[in-house]
């Protein structure tokens, strides 16, 4: 089977038994449905972000004086820089679509039920890391939008009880958004978050290997297909399509670079966050400054935290699916969250600006 060189290598590495086991492992037949390809799709897009991100870092200068111009240079002068930058920005959008779709399908299929609680929790951790990637990355071009998105986003740290002020200053590196903020966000975006993401992805994928793919509640078929070549081929097809989709999106709808951030200028009219932060943004806009004597943003943030916690803890409170019954409560919670997130986003884009 193996060529001489491969055999030489494997005599030293000893990995072939592990690899061949992984390739031959049986996968439940329903994993051939598109829902089960979303996680792999997110993994591919994350690797694509790593690749384009490394390329961008080569030309990027993380200081308020140079950041905006360096992004402009990447877009205007560096060969294919426009493509790399647009692929990184739009790739983030597509990655968030896949991550959220993966989250929602996993939730509604109750794939988090025992023994996959940790797989679910590492996934929630990855969602948090991806959100932090988007948030920190949006500051790096240092344009007007970046500046105010960061000013408002970090300001919300102040609402955390007791430690809010200290947290705010630690995140910003000072009183206001400035050079220390950019340095911190850069280090987070290119060092800390990638390390955290790789560790969590590793754990997440290991857990999926260990426990195998879950079968939906009530699924009795024991039928399975081999991972290689059946599932690998489908994954590969999806990944190639996704690469094409990101390139097309990047070419037709690149992310523009706004005017350079000016801390003295007022927030520009019509400023709004990316679509994935819209439910939070619109909620903050609607909630009055004070609700029953409590700070409005604190109320809104407490609401977001509770929703996130309820989702994250689903494997521990949804006892019905663990018993193999229809998870009525979990589905109701899921539908209510989706109605809020989708409804308020639609309202946000439809209302007169």
């Amino acid at each position, binding site marked *: 089977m193996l060529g001489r060189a491969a055999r030489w290598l494997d005599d030293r590495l000893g990995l072939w038994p592990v690899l061949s086991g992984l390739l031959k492992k049986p996968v439940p037949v329903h994993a051939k449905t598109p829902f089960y390809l979303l996680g792999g799709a997110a993994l591919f897009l994350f690797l694509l972000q790593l690749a384009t991100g490394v390329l961008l870092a080569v030309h990027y200068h993380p200081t308020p004086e140079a950041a905006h111009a360096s992004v402009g240079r990447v877009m205007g002068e560096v060969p294919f820089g426009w493509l790399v930058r647009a692929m990184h920005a739009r790739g983030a959008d597509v990655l968030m679509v896949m991550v959220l779709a993966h989250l929602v399908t996993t939730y509604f299929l109750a794939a988090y039920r025992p023994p996959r609680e940790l797989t679910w929790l590492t996934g929630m951790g990855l969602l948090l890391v991806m959100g932090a990637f988007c948030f920190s990355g949006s500051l790096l071009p240092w344009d007007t939008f970046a500046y*105010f998105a960061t*000013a*408002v986003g970090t*300001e919300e740290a102040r609402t955390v009880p007791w430690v809010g002020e200290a947290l705010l200053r630690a995140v*910003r590196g*000072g009183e206001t958004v400035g050079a220390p903020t950019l340095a911190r966000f850069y280090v987070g975006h290119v060092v800390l978050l990638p390390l955290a993401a790789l560790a969590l992805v590793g754990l997440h994928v290991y857990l999926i290997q260990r426990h195998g793919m879950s079968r939906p509640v009530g699924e009795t078929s024991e039928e399975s297909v081999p991972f290689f070549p059946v599932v690998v081929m489908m994954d590969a097809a999806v990944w190639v399509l996704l690469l094409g989709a990101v390139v097309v999106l990047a070419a037709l709808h690149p992310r523009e670079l706004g005017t350079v951030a000016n801390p*003295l200028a007022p927030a520009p009219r019509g400023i709004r966050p990316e679509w994935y932060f819209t439910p939070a943004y619109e909620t903050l806009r609607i909630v*009055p*400054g004070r609700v029953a004597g409590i700070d409005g*943003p604190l109320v809104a943030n407490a609401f977001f935290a509770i929703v996130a916690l309820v989702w994250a803890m689903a494997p521990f409170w949804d006892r019905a699916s663990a018993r193999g019954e229809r998870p009525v409560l979990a589905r109701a919670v899921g539908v209510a969250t989706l109605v809020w997130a989708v409804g308020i986003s639609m309202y946000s884009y439809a209302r007169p600006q």
Partner: protein
Amino acid sequence: MARPSLTRRRFIDMLLAGEFLALAAAVLYPMFSYLFPRASMELVPREVKVGPPDEIAPGSAKLINMGAKPVLVLRTAGGELRAMSAVCTHLQCTVQFRPELNAIHCACHDGKYDVAGRNVSGPPPRPLEPLAVEVRDGALYVKRV
């Protein structure tokens, strides 16, 4: 002989745990101090010179810096000069005067204030922080109150 409640093994375990905690603190404390920004001296000047008073026409406004914070200086349609912090009381965006609305507007979450800085609609919980204006020796000054 009764066994002592504190055995030699347990004593050494506690000693080791204590040493481990001390080591962790010795590593973490410098890390946290390194990461936490030093409290700035809040170098916000008591007053700042804006320029000639007639530079701001009736029904218009100007943004100036007072230390690191933006300040809005506006002249009402009636000719009265006013100054207030330009930092929105909701989530600290920088507000702007909109002559067509005769109001101060924060674009981040659509907060509105009247020309006196009172919050009138949207999420802002408090009026903008007021500042004093003074015309002295032919120049306009904004002062902290």
